[in-house]
């Protein structure tokens, strides 16, 4: 059953249109990928979904409720969280303060302690650095903190914008392993990645976004075919 649906979404900045009717869906526990080159509109898509970029048309539904055009702080309370590009942790605050801020968006205030315990289980390194300034963490640890901070809000849908950015291959594998575990726990996970191969091997479906439109949707098997992936990514045969 569809938990999250983006229907014919159009968005842009000033006089420039960036998205031209993007549609996609995700079900509970699904891991969906969105790939595309620089400037394809991937971050704009997430911005339009969470309310930081103005919509020019279309709708976003969460569990049947139309959340399009709502404010970011209201959207997170409905169960949709974003881990933004570049992590955007509060580097001057401690790890626990960052996590506490993440609790602000929870609907169920009684479950705060349990939520913190769960993310500490999932990311034990955050327990070790609990009182350290977040800006002192390594890139991988900061990414874990950014994901944990989104998770404590108990999202039904988790959006991640370029989670591999600036991370070493070993750390990327570690982060993506956690994302699989998060999806397996029932959260719908939607990942935007420029490095397509990172997400295509994990996602049930990968959408290719180019020039503000979804150009193709690939299954895990489709994406394993390098030629097919290249053709979808670049819009030609890849030669």
């Amino acid at each position: 059953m569809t938990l999250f649906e983006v229907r014919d979404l159009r968005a842009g900045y000033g006089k420039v249109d960036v998205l031209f009717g993007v549609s996609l869906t995700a079900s509970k526990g699904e891991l969906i990928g969105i790939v595309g080159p620089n400037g394809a509109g991937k971050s704009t898509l997430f911005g339009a979904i969470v309310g930081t970029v103005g919509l020019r048309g279309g709708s976003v539904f969460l569990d049947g409720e139309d959340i399009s055009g709502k404010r970011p702080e209201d959207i997170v309370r409905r169960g949709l969280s974003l881990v933004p590009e570049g992590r955007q942790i509060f580097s001057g605050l401690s790890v626990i303060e960052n996590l506490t801020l993440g609790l602000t968006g929870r609907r169920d205030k009684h479950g705060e302690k349990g939520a913190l315990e769960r993310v500490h289980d999932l990311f034990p390194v955050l327990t070790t650095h609990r009182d350290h300034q977040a800006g002192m963490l390594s890139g991988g640890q900061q990414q874990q903190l950014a994901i944990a901070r989104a998770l404590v809000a108990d999202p039904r849908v988790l959006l991640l914008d370029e989670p591999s950015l600036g991370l070493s291959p070993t750390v990327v594998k570690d982060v993506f392993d956690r994302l699989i575990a998060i999806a397996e726990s029932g959260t719908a996970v939607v990942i935007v990645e420029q490095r397509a191969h990172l997400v295509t091997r994990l996602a049930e479906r990968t959408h290719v976004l180019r020039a503000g439109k979804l150009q193709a949707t690939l299954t895990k098997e489709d994406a394993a075919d390098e030629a097919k992936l290249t053709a979808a990514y670049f819009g030609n045969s890849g030669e």
Partner: protein
Amino acid sequence: MIQAILDAVSLGGVYALAALGLGLVFGVMRLVNFAHAELITVASYTLVMTHQFPLVVSIVLSVVAASLMALLMELLAYRRLRGSNPATMLIVSFGVSVLLQKVYELVFGALPRSASVATGLTGAFTVGGVSITIASVVTIVLAVVILLAMGYLIERTKLGLQLRAAASDFQTARLLGVRSNRLIASAFVISGALAAVVAFVNVVGNPQVDPRFGLDITILALVGIVVGGMNSLRGSALGGFIVGAVLSLLNVILGNGRVYAYSWMFVIVIVILLVRPGGILSKFATKERV
């Protein structure tokens, strides 16, 4: 000498409170609220107009008046400008400031309104042969208590955590569920309450309230938040304190040359900013523009 030091600490404390009020609003909105002066003025008028009431009632009314005025400023003038560039917001805050001065002039008249407020604080006492004014001691105690309370609010409460996060990156804070309208309104209300405290201390020392009563202290508090570091609430308070304390000490040190106290204070400010262009507690380096 002891009285001079007490006066310096006392004036520093008052400017620290004024700068903290400005810094709170700047933190969440990137707005240099020049109209903070009119919050101090409305609280001062309230104290003078209600001087016949018990002091506590008068103080509470002045806090309510300044907080309400701050909230109205936010709702009617600044809310629609969120996201505008800082220069636009600064110009609008000038406009709000001038408009309110004219409103005060229409309501209270251009000439100063005067009344004795908290007359018990105007005396002095002697310790070891040194005469100390009650007002300076009360001001120091008040400033310390309120700065500590603000420190607790900012460092130990959820509201404070949200204010610090919003000052660092408001958009990300909103993505985490921080309610922007509520948080900005809270910052304005606290800023108004701090303005009322500043008004109380000033009115006790100088109960001649005119429509421009809050202007001088606000300008110097603005200098203070630049000196301390505009991106840091601690920096704002520290900068305000330095400006107030230095100005007070210069007035004593310069003796008959105290007419140059402002000039010397700005020389010191320039030296501080040359050494720490982002302010004393700022973590940000300046960017080369030319």
